[in-house]
């Protein structure tokens, strides 16, 4: 009986998550596009729903809600469904939509989509070879094979994102890094931009007038009409900027065209620089507000945290050390042993780990959704929006599965058992080590990248 009640609860929560994913898709991701293929929206919402259910099960594990048999059952069920979606459904649809965009392969869409899927499976399988992620007692078709590979991809993604995020966060929050921009700088740049546009316009007018005169001259001379007509028909198949055959009639035309191309490139650069200056000016204004000052303070705090994390990652790699106890138990140990404060360990460890794990889950979901949205706006167009959303759904699913894997380390021993049981005998230590390595690499290269970008920008202002 309790199993039925538990299942109903789980199902309701899944429907809620599905609805949330649906709304997020419609309101945030696809707000500038028309949804024509509803399957994309459904697949995205399903991936989101089942990923969130996994987090919910962890919370239930800590709180002790629902009976343990039904929890175990739902874990297994959820895991199978998520793996099915991530390995079969989403890649197949990605292949299908990529193929539909290519005009040549319109005939045999399904066939080519299947071929793409098989290629994906091949590389996915090959991924497991260089990593020591499996113990030899697993068969070839066991669930652990799939999870381990999904885990590797997901952990790499997590480490990349958190490495970059850990460095970028203080950089954007702290106003120490803001360059000084005055209104007159912006006005001067805008004036230059308009002047460049005016020069482009006057040169294009000259080109247009010259071409018109040549055309009229060509019509007056009847003898050359046939010849002229042939030349005209050749030029009409080329794009306007390649006035190749008119060169023989007027060499300065190609010269003016080259000047126009150079000026257009300059106008693009000036536009981008002006946008850059405007956004810096807005950030300076924001930093003077109360919110801005708060974020500035947070930035200092985060930069210390970031340095500490990089330091810890290096220590872990160099000394080949994997933490045995989680932060909650460690913190309680310290308070009990060193500070001599006595309190009910079991009771508090449950609540504190619930809060800690809850915070980790919420911030990682929120952070991932925001990053995905930004990414989507930056690179999508009306043709590729379906494909990109599905790729993002794949990334999201793998990210959430591996965060469950890694979260195991943050939970006290009594709650870890269910995760270990469900996911099978994976080499969890390997995943933590891999996370540390990729995190270190990502953080250091982000520091290098931001340093170079920051160095370049002030030099541009010197030349103005």
């Amino acid at each position, binding site marked *: 009986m309790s199993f039925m009640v538990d299942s109903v609860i789980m199902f309701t929560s899944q429907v809620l998550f599905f609805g949330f994913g649906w709304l997020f898709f419609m309101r945030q991701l696809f707000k*500038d596009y*028309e949804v024509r293929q509803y399957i994309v929206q459904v697949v995205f919402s399903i991936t989101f729903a089942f990923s969130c259910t996994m987090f919910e099960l962890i919370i239930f594990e800590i709180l002790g809600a629902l009976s343990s048999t039904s929890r175990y059952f739902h874990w297994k069920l959820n895991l199978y469904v998520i793996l099915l979606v991530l390995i079969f459904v989403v890649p197949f649809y990605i292949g299908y939509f990529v193929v539909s965009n290519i005009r040549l392969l319109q005939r045999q869409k399904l066939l080519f989509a299947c071929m793409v899927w098989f290629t994906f499976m091949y590389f996915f399988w090959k991924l497991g070879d260089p990593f020591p992620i499996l113990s030899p007692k697993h068969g070839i078709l066991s669930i652990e094979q799939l999870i381990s590979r999904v885990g590797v991809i997901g952990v790499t993604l997590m480490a990349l994102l958190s490495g970059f995020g850990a460095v970028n966060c203080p950089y954007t929050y702290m106003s120490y890094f803001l360059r000084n921009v005055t209104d007159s700088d912006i006005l001067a740049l805008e004036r230059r*931009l308009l002047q460049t*546009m005016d020069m482009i*316009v006057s040169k294009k007018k000259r080109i247009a007038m010259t071409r018109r005169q040549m055309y009229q001259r060509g019509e007056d001379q009847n003898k050359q009409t046939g010849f002229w007509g042939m030349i005209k028909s050749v030029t009409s198949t080329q794009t306007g900027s390649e006035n190749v055959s008119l060169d023989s009639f007027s060499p300065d035309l190609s010269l003016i065209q080259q000047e126009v191309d150079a000026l257009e490139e300059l106008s693009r650069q000036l536009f*981008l620089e002006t946008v850059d200056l405007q956004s810096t000016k807005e950030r300076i204004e924001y930093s003077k507000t109360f919110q801005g000052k708060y974020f500035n303070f947070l930035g200092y705090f985060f930069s210390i945290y970031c340095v500490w994390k990089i330091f810890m990652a290096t220590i872990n790699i160099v000394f080949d050390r994997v933490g045995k106890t989680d932060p909650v138990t460690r913190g309680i140990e310290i308070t009990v042993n060193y500070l001599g404060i006595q309190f009910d360990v079991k009771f508090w460890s449950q609540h504190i780990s619930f809060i800690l794990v809850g915070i980790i889950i919420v911030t990682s979901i929120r952070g991932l959704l925001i990053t995905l949205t930004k990414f989507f706006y930056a690179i999508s167009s009306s043709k590729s929006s379906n494909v990109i959303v599905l790729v993002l759904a794949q990334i999201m699913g793998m990210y959430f599965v591996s965060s469950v894997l890694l979260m195991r380390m943050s939970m006290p021993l009594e709650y870890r058992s269910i995760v270990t049981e469900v996911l099978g005998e994976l080499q969890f230590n390997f995943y933590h080590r891999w996370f540390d390595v990729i995190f270190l690499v990502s953080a250091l290269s982000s520091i290098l990248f931001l340093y170079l970008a920051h160095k370049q920008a002030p030099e541009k202002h010197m030349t103005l």
Partner: protein
Amino acid sequence: MASLDRVKVLVLGDSGVGKSSLVHLLCQNQVLGNPSWTVGCSVDVRVQDYKEGTPEEKTYYIELWDVGGSVGSASSIKSTRAVFYNSVNGIMLVHDLTNKKSSQNLYRWSLEALNKDSSPTGVIVSNGDYDREQFAENPVPLLLIGTKFDQIPENKRNEVLTRTAFLSEDFNAEEINLDCTNPRYLAAGTSNAVKLSRFFDKVRNPQLSTVTCSVSAEIVMFVVWLYCGEQKP
């Protein structure tokens, strides 16, 4: 009389609707082979004949300013774009007939451009809400262009055309539906070409529409008076 020196027409719309292809078709009379994203603003020049065929035939240039981007861009991009909206004589609003959102975004585009118009007769818009009456008295002529007409299947054509008819009523503007990869739609003598040259005449000479109205009203009155006069026993 409009300034004889510069006639500036903005071409606005969401990214990917086909503004660059349209501008290329209008100015070079050729189809653009490899469209790519417009960064910032790209200008092209069209040579137009005014009062063609009459002794007062005059040739003038129309500058088509193709401003790239989307309505949801960051405010830094929007404030940089505003630089291009000064002293505009006409606006071409381009939308994609296969994408309803691009038609809806045209309201926001027109508000963005008209709000920044620095001429003294500029439209005063209250808190960004759309109001049809403001467009009725708008001194800047608008033209509505729907692209990718060939990609609409036959059975959906009527529905799409009704929708665009509502849109052109809202903006108090003429509408043209075409496919930018096919110059046939703007061939001389088609109704599209007539609408286009009417729009450019209005852009060059904003008093033209009101002058024609009052003159034609006078002529009608005169004819009626003549007719009634003859009817008297």
